[in-house]
């Protein structure tokens, strides 16, 4: 049994402030590994500015390539491909190819190459406070982001084990699909960052179902909570009604937050006495208490 816990920050809806909150939590939880699992759009290191200490290639799925010199245009590949990825003149459309290998298995002249490809990179860094950060970059347009998320989490766990660090904080991707599932499975606690808008609440309901589905202890943070106090109250009511989610608090809208973002630093560093910073420190205390108690 591992002696570290994993806390994942997710949102359902994109752009609610996940990464900004993770950067703050990373500095408040002093001893932690941070794992940026938003591999489509890895932004955490733009704030944390870690020094890369190790870089690994991510080898993702395979794609078929027809070697025209060996191809006898028999048409067997066209027959077995379900994804319409092979043209009538026997060229594989890389975007349509699902990487299943059916054409490769059935080609009678072994004319189809089917080799693993490098689809991204995984970086282990040390941030200014000497703590590890792991993040990855999927090459634009590539597949298997779920697999790359798993690689980031594996590297983060190695860091936690070898350096005896009790906590991994995971910055998750938006949505509820494959990379999100890969980010949340096996974690004990989730923080869901939402905003007081119709879309925010719609997406919050779906992500709460997801955390319930995986049996994860979830709590909610409302960012820009004072933009629409009616919606913020309904988020609170929703948490209580579901009975499965804690309400960790709201962060007020403050222009200083976007100023800090543009400067590429956290609000805690940019304006430590601002209302937003105070709210974030209180939220941190509640998250910590919740993790210690359950």
């Amino acid at each position, binding site marked *: 049994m591992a002696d570290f816990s994993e806390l994942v920050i997710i949102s359902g*809806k*994109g*752009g609610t402030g996940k990464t900004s909150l993770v950067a703050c939590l990373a500095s408040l939880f002093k001893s932690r590994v941070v794992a940026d699992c938003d591999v489509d*759009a890895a932004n955490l290191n733009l704030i944390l500015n870690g020094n890369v200490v190790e870089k690994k290639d991510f080898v993702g799925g395979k794609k078929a390539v027809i070697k025209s010199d060996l191809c006898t245009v028999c048409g067997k590949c066209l027959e077995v491909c379900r994804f319409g990825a092979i043209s009538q003149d026997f060229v594989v459309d890389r*975007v349509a190819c699902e990487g299943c290998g059916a054409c490769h298995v059935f080609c009678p002249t072994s004319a189809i190459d089917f080799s693993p490809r490098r689809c991204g990179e995984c970086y282990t860094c040390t941030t200014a406070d000497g703590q590890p950060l792991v993040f990855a970059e999927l090459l*634009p347009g590539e597949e298997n982001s779920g697999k790359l998320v798993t690689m980031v989490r594996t590297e983060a766990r190695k860091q936690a084990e070898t350096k005896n660090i009790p906590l991994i904080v995971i910055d998750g991707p938006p*949505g509820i699909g494959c*990379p999100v599932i890969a980010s949340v499975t096996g974690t004990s606690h989730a923080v869901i960052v939402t905003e007081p808008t*119709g879309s925010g609440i719609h997406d919050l309901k779906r992500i709460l179902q997801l955390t319930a589905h995986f049996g994860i202890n979830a709590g909610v943070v409302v960012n820009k909570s004072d*933009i629409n106090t009616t919606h913020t109250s309904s988020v609170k009511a929703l948490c209580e009604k579901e009975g499965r989610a804690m309400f960790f608090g709201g962060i007020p809208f403050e222009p200083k937050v976007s100023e800090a973002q543009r400067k590429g630093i956290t609000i805690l560093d940019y304006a430590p006495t601002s209302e937003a910073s105070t709210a974030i420190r209180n939220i941190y205390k509640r998250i910590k208490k919740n993790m210690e108690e359950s």
Partner: protein
Amino acid sequence: MRIAFASGKGGTGKTTIAVNLAWFLAYEGQRVQYLDCDVEEPNGHIFLKPAIERQERASVMVPIIDQKRCTSCAKCGEVCQFSAIVNLPSNTLLIPPMCHGCGLCTLVCPTKAITEGTREIGLIETGKTADAIPFVHGVLNIGEPMAIPLIEQVKARGAASHTQIIDAPPGTSCPVVKTIRDSDLVVMVTEPTPFGLHDLKMAVSVASNLGVPVGIVVNRENGAFEPLERYLETRSLPVLARFPEDREIARSYSEGLLICEALPTYREKFKALADGIGEILKEHGESKGWQISANL
């Protein structure tokens, strides 16, 4: 005609711009259809409020293993690229959410122990808005990782007779690729922050690898953000519209209102956006059916 809306980073305003442009084009008399391909978290309906006329279950193919015929030869697990089959000494297990429905296991099984059935992954809803805009969205089931087949099924309902406004999911990986790959133009909605710019660059490279022309909308602007301006200039990316950081927009958004209806002065911005799209399409010889009248 297909116009997709993407961004890389989430929450930059893709849906806001897409739903308002759809409304504006319909108001100007174009035949418009709205396709929400952000199937993990579809939000377009919150603003367009369509009356849903039809619900269909979306499903994918999945193998069914007949344990009586299975000889545990493990050939199926060997060829499966998606780790969806676990071969145990005395039986063969399927992990349905991992399966991509390629059918290869069925084809290689020497005892024909594997047949195929279907597995539900979500819902497709079609309807019409109060302004008679045909609307389609996909809603992925909770706990379901397979978004792409649902995206493809939503897109398959696109009407060639209409201008299709397609809302893409955030990110830069396969769901975005499958959404925008056959679009005539992709509008990238970005915000002037380091995060917005970092993700915009990746999203633009996805579009250029696919050979899809790009137009830019800068959203929530509050003074110029130099790094973004420099990037747009170096890459000669056309800015089709700029929207200010405006509390009134945020408020109408939070209430699920269309900017074009709640704040009609912004209609001019959407006209500029529509005209800018028309120009790019013309450059690429695709402008058929794209006409915007001058009267607001």
